[in-house]
Protein backbone atom coordinates (compact mmCIF):
# COMPACT_ATOMS: atom_id res chain seq x y z
CA UNK A 1 0.00 0.00 0.00
CA UNK A 2 2.87 2.30 0.88
CA UNK A 3 4.45 1.61 -2.45
CA UNK A 4 1.21 2.45 -4.21
CA UNK A 5 0.94 5.70 -2.27
CA UNK A 6 4.55 6.62 -3.07
CA UNK A 7 4.00 5.96 -6.75
CA UNK A 8 0.80 7.98 -6.72
CA UNK A 9 2.52 10.92 -5.10
CA UNK A 10 5.31 10.64 -7.61
CA UNK A 11 2.83 10.57 -10.48
CA UNK A 12 0.96 13.46 -9.00
CA UNK A 13 4.11 15.54 -9.23
CA UNK A 14 4.65 14.44 -12.81
CA UNK A 15 7.70 12.41 -11.83
CA UNK A 16 6.89 9.44 -14.07
CA UNK A 17 5.95 11.48 -17.13
CA UNK A 18 8.52 11.61 -19.88
CA UNK A 19 10.16 14.77 -21.17
CA UNK A 20 11.59 12.92 -24.18
CA UNK A 21 11.52 14.91 -27.40
CA UNK A 22 11.02 13.49 -30.92
CA UNK A 23 14.75 14.15 -31.42
CA UNK A 24 15.54 11.67 -28.60
CA UNK A 25 13.52 8.99 -30.38
CA UNK A 26 15.24 9.83 -33.66
CA UNK A 27 18.61 9.42 -31.91
CA UNK A 28 17.48 5.97 -30.74
CA UNK A 29 17.52 4.92 -34.39
CA UNK A 30 21.30 5.44 -34.73
CA UNK A 31 21.01 7.95 -37.60
CA UNK A 32 24.72 7.74 -38.49
CA UNK A 33 24.53 3.97 -39.00
CA UNK A 34 21.23 4.42 -40.81
CA UNK A 35 22.89 6.65 -43.40
CA UNK A 36 25.24 3.90 -44.57
CA UNK A 37 22.42 1.34 -44.42
CA UNK A 38 20.21 3.49 -46.65
CA UNK A 39 23.07 4.16 -49.04
CA UNK A 40 23.97 0.48 -49.49
CA UNK A 41 20.31 -0.55 -49.77
CA UNK A 42 19.85 2.09 -52.48
CA UNK A 43 22.92 0.77 -54.28
CA UNK A 44 21.49 -2.76 -54.21
CA UNK A 45 18.18 -1.53 -55.56
CA UNK A 46 19.75 0.55 -58.33
CA UNK A 47 22.25 -2.15 -59.32
CA UNK A 48 19.50 -4.77 -59.72
CA UNK A 49 18.72 -5.56 -63.37
CA UNK A 50 15.09 -4.42 -63.05
CA UNK A 51 13.60 -0.94 -63.37
CA UNK A 52 11.61 -0.51 -60.17
CA UNK A 53 8.80 2.03 -59.86
CA UNK A 54 10.46 5.15 -58.36
CA UNK A 55 7.81 5.63 -55.67
CA UNK A 56 7.80 1.97 -54.62
CA UNK A 57 11.62 2.00 -54.67
CA UNK A 58 11.61 5.06 -52.42
CA UNK A 59 9.17 3.39 -50.03
CA UNK A 60 11.31 0.24 -49.94
CA UNK A 61 14.38 2.27 -48.99
CA UNK A 62 12.35 4.11 -46.36
CA UNK A 63 11.30 0.73 -44.92
CA UNK A 64 14.93 -0.39 -44.76
CA UNK A 65 15.81 2.86 -42.97
CA UNK A 66 13.00 2.51 -40.43
CA UNK A 67 13.77 -1.20 -39.96
CA UNK A 68 17.44 -0.41 -39.31
CA UNK A 69 16.38 2.32 -36.91
CA UNK A 70 14.07 -0.10 -35.11
CA UNK A 71 16.94 -2.56 -34.68
CA UNK A 72 19.07 0.30 -33.33
CA UNK A 73 16.38 1.27 -30.82
CA UNK A 74 16.02 -2.31 -29.59
CA UNK A 75 19.82 -2.52 -29.30
CA UNK A 76 19.93 0.67 -27.24
CA UNK A 77 17.12 -0.55 -24.98
CA UNK A 78 18.92 -3.83 -24.23
CA UNK A 79 22.40 -2.31 -23.95
CA UNK A 80 21.40 0.63 -21.73
CA UNK A 81 23.47 -0.75 -18.84
CA UNK A 82 26.74 -1.07 -20.76
CA UNK A 83 26.11 2.09 -22.79
CA UNK A 84 26.02 4.01 -19.51
CA UNK A 85 29.54 2.83 -18.63
CA UNK A 86 31.14 3.65 -22.00
CA UNK A 87 32.34 7.19 -22.78
CA UNK A 88 31.38 6.83 -26.44
CA UNK A 89 27.78 5.81 -25.71
CA UNK A 90 26.84 7.30 -22.35
CA UNK A 91 25.10 10.26 -23.99
CA UNK A 92 22.65 8.04 -25.86
CA UNK A 93 18.98 8.73 -25.03
CA UNK A 94 18.43 5.73 -22.71
CA UNK A 95 21.54 5.96 -20.48
CA UNK A 96 21.06 9.76 -20.42
CA UNK A 97 17.59 9.17 -18.97
CA UNK A 98 15.76 10.96 -21.79
CA UNK A 99 13.92 7.80 -22.90
CA UNK A 100 12.99 4.90 -20.61
CA UNK A 101 14.03 1.34 -21.46
CA UNK A 102 10.41 0.25 -21.87
CA UNK A 103 9.67 3.17 -24.20
CA UNK A 104 12.73 2.32 -26.27
CA UNK A 105 11.55 -1.31 -26.56
CA UNK A 106 8.05 -0.15 -27.46
CA UNK A 107 9.28 2.31 -30.05
CA UNK A 108 11.66 -0.25 -31.58
CA UNK A 109 8.99 -2.94 -31.76
CA UNK A 110 6.36 -0.70 -33.35
CA UNK A 111 8.86 0.66 -35.89
CA UNK A 112 10.04 -2.88 -36.72
CA UNK A 113 6.52 -4.19 -37.30
CA UNK A 114 5.47 -1.19 -39.41
CA UNK A 115 8.62 -1.27 -41.54
CA UNK A 116 8.19 -4.98 -42.33
CA UNK A 117 4.47 -4.62 -43.13
CA UNK A 118 5.14 -1.63 -45.38
CA UNK A 119 7.96 -3.48 -47.12
CA UNK A 120 5.62 -6.39 -47.86
CA UNK A 121 3.11 -3.94 -49.30
CA UNK A 122 5.60 -1.84 -51.29
CA UNK A 123 7.79 -4.62 -52.72
CA UNK A 124 7.45 -8.33 -52.01
CA UNK A 125 7.30 -10.86 -49.19
CA UNK A 126 10.88 -12.05 -49.66
CA UNK A 127 12.26 -8.54 -49.13
CA UNK A 128 9.97 -8.09 -46.12
CA UNK A 129 11.11 -11.44 -44.71
CA UNK A 130 14.77 -10.49 -45.15
CA UNK A 131 14.13 -7.16 -43.45
CA UNK A 132 12.40 -8.90 -40.52
CA UNK A 133 15.23 -11.40 -40.26
CA UNK A 134 17.91 -8.69 -40.31
CA UNK A 135 16.15 -6.80 -37.50
CA UNK A 136 15.85 -10.04 -35.50
CA UNK A 137 19.49 -10.90 -36.22
CA UNK A 138 20.76 -7.54 -34.99
CA UNK A 139 18.46 -7.14 -31.98
CA UNK A 140 18.44 -10.73 -30.73
CA UNK A 141 21.30 -12.77 -32.22
CA UNK A 142 23.92 -10.01 -32.09
CA UNK A 143 22.79 -7.74 -29.24
CA UNK A 144 21.28 -10.22 -26.81
CA UNK A 145 23.27 -13.38 -27.52
CA UNK A 146 26.65 -12.70 -29.15
CA UNK A 147 27.79 -9.25 -28.07
CA UNK A 148 28.53 -10.02 -24.42
CA UNK A 149 29.62 -13.63 -24.92
CA UNK A 150 32.20 -13.96 -27.68
CA UNK A 151 34.97 -11.95 -29.39
CA UNK A 152 33.48 -13.23 -32.65
CA UNK A 153 30.41 -11.08 -31.89
CA UNK A 154 31.06 -8.57 -34.63
CA UNK A 155 32.11 -11.22 -37.17
CA UNK A 156 28.83 -13.14 -36.96
CA UNK A 157 26.72 -10.14 -36.01
CA UNK A 158 28.11 -8.25 -38.97
CA UNK A 159 25.68 -10.20 -41.13
CA UNK A 160 22.88 -7.95 -39.86
CA UNK A 161 24.52 -4.89 -41.38
CA UNK A 162 25.26 -6.77 -44.60
CA UNK A 163 21.60 -7.37 -45.44
CA UNK A 164 20.56 -3.89 -46.73
CA UNK A 165 22.01 -4.13 -50.29
CA UNK A 166 20.56 -7.62 -50.60
CA UNK A 167 17.17 -6.34 -49.39
CA UNK A 168 17.36 -3.49 -51.91
CA UNK A 169 18.17 -5.98 -54.68
CA UNK A 170 15.37 -8.35 -53.66
CA UNK A 171 12.89 -5.47 -53.35
CA UNK A 172 13.53 -4.73 -57.03
CA UNK A 173 13.82 -8.25 -58.44
CA UNK A 174 11.87 -10.47 -56.04
CA UNK A 175 14.68 -13.03 -55.87
CA UNK A 176 18.19 -13.55 -54.50
CA UNK A 177 20.94 -13.83 -57.09
CA UNK A 178 24.71 -14.33 -56.97
CA UNK A 179 25.29 -10.58 -57.28
CA UNK A 180 23.05 -9.93 -54.27
CA UNK A 181 25.07 -12.45 -52.25
CA UNK A 182 28.31 -10.78 -53.37
CA UNK A 183 27.08 -7.39 -52.15
CA UNK A 184 26.13 -9.03 -48.85
CA UNK A 185 29.58 -10.62 -48.55
CA UNK A 186 31.43 -7.36 -49.21
CA UNK A 187 29.83 -5.72 -46.16
CA UNK A 188 30.11 -8.93 -44.14
CA UNK A 189 33.89 -9.04 -44.74
CA UNK A 190 34.24 -5.28 -44.27
CA UNK A 191 32.68 -5.26 -40.78
CA UNK A 192 35.47 -6.97 -38.76
CA UNK A 193 38.38 -4.71 -39.81
CA UNK A 194 36.11 -1.67 -39.52
CA UNK A 195 34.79 -2.53 -36.05
CA UNK A 196 38.07 -3.83 -34.66
CA UNK A 197 39.90 -0.67 -35.78
CA UNK A 198 37.47 1.27 -33.58
CA UNK A 199 37.70 -1.31 -30.80
CA UNK A 200 41.52 -0.99 -30.79
CA UNK A 201 41.45 2.65 -29.77
CA UNK A 202 38.34 2.33 -27.60
CA UNK A 203 39.34 -0.98 -25.97
CA UNK A 204 39.36 0.52 -22.46
CA UNK A 205 35.72 1.46 -22.94
CA UNK A 206 34.78 -2.07 -23.99
CA UNK A 207 36.84 -3.63 -21.18
CA UNK A 208 35.12 -1.42 -18.60
CA UNK A 209 31.74 -2.48 -19.95
CA UNK A 210 32.72 -6.16 -19.99
CA UNK A 211 32.18 -6.54 -23.72
CA UNK A 212 34.65 -9.14 -25.08
CA UNK A 213 35.63 -7.28 -28.23
CA UNK A 214 38.66 -8.81 -29.93
CA UNK A 215 41.28 -6.42 -28.44
CA UNK A 216 39.86 -7.05 -24.95
CA UNK A 217 39.58 -10.83 -25.30
CA UNK A 218 42.61 -11.69 -27.45
CA UNK A 219 44.77 -8.59 -27.07
CA UNK A 220 45.73 -5.82 -29.50
CA UNK A 221 48.51 -7.76 -31.26
CA UNK A 222 46.18 -10.59 -32.31
CA UNK A 223 43.54 -8.03 -33.31
CA UNK A 224 45.95 -6.14 -35.53
CA UNK A 225 46.89 -9.38 -37.29
CA UNK A 226 43.25 -10.33 -37.80
CA UNK A 227 42.48 -6.85 -39.15
CA UNK A 228 45.22 -7.32 -41.74
CA UNK A 229 43.96 -10.81 -42.67
CA UNK A 230 40.33 -9.71 -43.02
CA UNK A 231 41.40 -6.62 -44.98
CA UNK A 232 43.25 -8.81 -47.45
CA UNK A 233 40.26 -11.10 -47.93
CA UNK A 234 37.92 -8.09 -48.23
CA UNK A 235 40.01 -6.27 -50.82
CA UNK A 236 40.34 -9.41 -52.96
CA UNK A 237 36.65 -10.24 -52.63
CA UNK A 238 35.61 -6.67 -53.46
CA UNK A 239 36.78 -7.45 -57.01
CA UNK A 240 34.10 -10.14 -57.41
CA UNK A 241 31.46 -7.79 -58.89
CA UNK A 242 33.87 -7.10 -61.77
CA UNK A 243 34.03 -10.82 -62.56
CA UNK A 244 30.24 -11.22 -62.66
CA UNK A 245 29.79 -8.05 -64.72
CA UNK A 246 27.95 -6.21 -61.92
CA UNK A 247 30.82 -3.76 -61.58
CA UNK A 248 32.15 -1.89 -64.60
CA UNK A 249 35.31 0.13 -65.15
CA UNK A 250 34.47 2.77 -62.54
CA UNK A 251 33.82 0.09 -59.93
CA UNK A 252 36.99 -1.79 -60.88
CA UNK A 253 39.09 1.37 -60.54
CA UNK A 254 37.48 2.24 -57.19
CA UNK A 255 37.91 -1.29 -55.93
CA UNK A 256 41.55 -1.44 -57.03
CA UNK A 257 42.64 2.02 -55.85
CA UNK A 258 40.50 2.04 -52.73
CA UNK A 259 41.53 -1.51 -51.89
CA UNK A 260 45.23 -0.68 -52.20
CA UNK A 261 44.84 2.20 -49.77
CA UNK A 262 42.77 0.00 -47.43
CA UNK A 263 45.58 -2.56 -47.37
CA UNK A 264 48.19 0.13 -46.79
CA UNK A 265 46.27 1.47 -43.78
CA UNK A 266 45.69 -2.06 -42.45
CA UNK A 267 49.42 -2.70 -42.82
CA UNK A 268 50.12 0.47 -40.84
CA UNK A 269 47.77 -0.72 -38.10
CA UNK A 270 49.53 -4.11 -38.08
CA UNK A 271 52.90 -2.41 -37.59
CA UNK A 272 51.61 0.10 -35.03
CA UNK A 273 51.12 -0.23 -31.29
CA UNK A 274 47.42 0.58 -31.62
CA UNK A 275 45.43 -0.67 -28.67
CA UNK A 276 48.48 -0.96 -26.38
CA UNK A 277 47.85 2.33 -24.59
CA UNK A 278 44.29 1.55 -23.54
CA UNK A 279 41.34 3.75 -24.31
CA UNK A 280 41.43 7.41 -25.24
CA UNK A 281 40.43 9.70 -22.41
CA UNK A 282 38.16 11.79 -24.59
CA UNK A 283 34.73 10.50 -25.51
CA UNK A 284 34.69 11.69 -29.12
CA UNK A 285 34.48 9.03 -31.82
CA UNK A 286 37.73 9.99 -33.54
CA UNK A 287 39.72 11.06 -30.45
CA UNK A 288 42.86 8.92 -29.99
CA UNK A 289 46.15 8.64 -28.18
CA UNK A 290 49.29 9.02 -30.30
CA UNK A 291 49.86 5.24 -30.76
CA UNK A 292 46.30 4.66 -31.91
CA UNK A 293 46.27 7.00 -34.90
CA UNK A 294 46.75 4.21 -37.41
CA UNK A 295 43.64 2.43 -36.09
CA UNK A 296 41.65 5.66 -36.13
CA UNK A 297 42.73 6.33 -39.73
CA UNK A 298 41.67 2.85 -40.85
CA UNK A 299 38.33 3.17 -39.06
CA UNK A 300 37.58 6.50 -40.72
CA UNK A 301 38.84 5.41 -44.13
CA UNK A 302 36.91 2.11 -44.07
CA UNK A 303 33.63 4.04 -44.06
CA UNK A 304 34.72 6.06 -47.09
CA UNK A 305 35.96 2.92 -48.84
CA UNK A 306 32.64 1.10 -48.51
CA UNK A 307 30.71 4.21 -49.52
CA UNK A 308 32.95 4.63 -52.59
CA UNK A 309 32.41 1.02 -53.73
CA UNK A 310 28.64 1.36 -53.55
CA UNK A 311 28.71 4.89 -54.99
CA UNK A 312 30.52 3.44 -58.02
CA UNK A 313 27.72 0.90 -58.47
CA UNK A 314 25.10 3.64 -58.18
CA UNK A 315 26.93 5.79 -60.74
CA UNK A 316 27.25 2.86 -63.15
CA UNK A 317 23.72 1.50 -62.89
CA UNK A 318 21.76 4.61 -61.92
CA UNK A 319 23.48 7.29 -63.98
CA UNK A 320 24.60 5.43 -67.07
CA UNK A 321 28.30 5.40 -66.21
CA UNK A 322 28.64 1.67 -66.79
CA UNK A 323 31.48 0.72 -69.09
CA UNK A 324 32.23 -2.98 -69.07
CA UNK A 325 35.69 -4.11 -68.15
CA UNK A 326 37.47 -5.53 -71.23
CA UNK A 327 37.37 -9.32 -71.23
CA UNK A 328 34.38 -9.49 -68.84
CA UNK A 329 30.78 -9.88 -69.98
CA UNK A 330 28.83 -6.82 -68.81
Amino acid at each position, binding site marked *: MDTLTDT*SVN*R*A*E*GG*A*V*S*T*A*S*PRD*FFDLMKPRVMTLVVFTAFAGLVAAPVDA*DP*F*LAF*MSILCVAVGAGAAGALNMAYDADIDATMKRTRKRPVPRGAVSVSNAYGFGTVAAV*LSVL*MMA*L*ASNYLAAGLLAFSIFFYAVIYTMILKRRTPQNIVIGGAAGAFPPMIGWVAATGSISLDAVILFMIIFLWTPPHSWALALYKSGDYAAAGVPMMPVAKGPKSTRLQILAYSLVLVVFAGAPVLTGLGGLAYAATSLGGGALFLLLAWRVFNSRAGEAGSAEEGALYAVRAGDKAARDLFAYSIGYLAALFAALIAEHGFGAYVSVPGVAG
Partner: protein
Amino acid sequence: MSTENETLTEAEREAKERADNFGFHHREGRPTGEHVTLTPEQEKARRKRNIYIALGLVGFMVAVFLITVVRLSQNIADGAAG
Protein backbone atom coordinates in the same frame (compact mmCIF):
# COMPACT_ATOMS: atom_id res chain seq x y z
CA MET B 1 -11.54 6.47 11.99
CA SER B 2 -15.27 6.49 11.37
CA THR B 3 -15.85 8.29 14.69
CA GLU B 4 -13.47 11.01 13.59
CA ASN B 5 -15.31 11.41 10.27
CA GLU B 6 -18.68 11.62 12.00
CA THR B 7 -17.52 14.57 14.08
CA LEU B 8 -16.46 16.53 10.96
CA THR B 9 -18.77 18.91 9.13
CA GLU B 10 -19.63 18.30 5.47
CA ALA B 11 -17.20 21.01 4.35
CA GLU B 12 -14.42 19.61 6.52
CA ARG B 13 -15.02 16.10 5.22
CA GLU B 14 -14.79 17.35 1.63
CA ALA B 15 -11.65 19.33 2.38
CA LYS B 16 -10.09 16.24 3.95
CA GLU B 17 -11.03 14.07 1.00
CA ARG B 18 -9.55 16.56 -1.41
CA ALA B 19 -6.37 16.73 0.65
CA ASP B 20 -6.11 12.93 0.58
CA ASN B 21 -6.96 12.75 -3.11
CA PHE B 22 -4.68 15.27 -4.82
CA GLY B 23 -7.30 18.00 -4.73
CA PHE B 24 -10.16 15.96 -6.22
CA HIS B 25 -13.47 14.89 -4.75
CA HIS B 26 -14.68 11.36 -5.46
CA ARG B 27 -17.88 12.69 -7.03
CA GLU B 28 -15.81 14.38 -9.73
CA GLY B 29 -15.14 10.85 -10.99
CA ARG B 30 -11.81 11.56 -12.62
CA PRO B 31 -9.71 8.57 -13.71
CA THR B 32 -6.42 8.09 -11.92
CA GLY B 33 -4.32 9.32 -14.85
CA GLU B 34 -5.97 12.73 -14.64
CA HIS B 35 -4.44 13.24 -11.23
CA VAL B 36 -1.03 13.86 -12.77
CA THR B 37 -0.10 17.50 -12.82
CA LEU B 38 2.45 18.00 -15.56
CA THR B 39 5.23 20.50 -15.33
CA PRO B 40 5.32 23.00 -18.23
CA GLU B 41 8.38 21.19 -19.59
CA GLN B 42 6.57 17.82 -19.55
CA GLU B 43 3.50 19.29 -21.14
CA LYS B 44 5.55 20.88 -23.92
CA ALA B 45 7.40 17.60 -24.55
CA ARG B 46 4.14 15.62 -24.62
CA ARG B 47 2.54 18.05 -27.07
CA LYS B 48 5.57 17.80 -29.33
CA ARG B 49 5.52 13.99 -29.20
CA ASN B 50 1.79 13.94 -29.93
CA ILE B 51 2.27 16.14 -32.99
CA TYR B 52 4.97 13.81 -34.35
CA ILE B 53 2.85 10.73 -33.63
CA ALA B 54 -0.06 12.36 -35.48
CA LEU B 55 2.20 13.24 -38.42
CA GLY B 56 3.56 9.68 -38.41
CA LEU B 57 0.05 8.19 -38.48
CA VAL B 58 -1.09 10.49 -41.28
CA GLY B 59 2.11 9.73 -43.21
CA PHE B 60 1.54 6.00 -42.72
CA MET B 61 -2.03 6.23 -44.01
CA VAL B 62 -1.00 8.31 -47.03
CA ALA B 63 1.86 5.88 -47.79
CA VAL B 64 -0.44 2.84 -47.62
CA PHE B 65 -2.97 4.60 -49.85
CA LEU B 66 -0.41 5.63 -52.45
CA ILE B 67 1.30 2.22 -52.48
CA THR B 68 -2.10 0.58 -53.01
CA VAL B 69 -2.92 2.94 -55.89
CA VAL B 70 0.45 2.38 -57.59
CA ARG B 71 0.27 -1.39 -57.21
CA LEU B 72 -3.31 -1.52 -58.45
CA SER B 73 -2.35 0.56 -61.48
CA GLN B 74 0.57 -1.78 -62.18
CA ASN B 75 -1.64 -4.85 -61.92
CA ILE B 76 -4.29 -3.32 -64.19
CA ALA B 77 -1.60 -2.39 -66.74
CA ASP B 78 -0.12 -5.90 -66.52
CA GLY B 79 -3.59 -7.42 -66.99
CA ALA B 80 -4.29 -5.25 -70.02
CA ALA B 81 -0.91 -6.13 -71.55
CA GLY B 82 -1.36 -9.85 -70.87
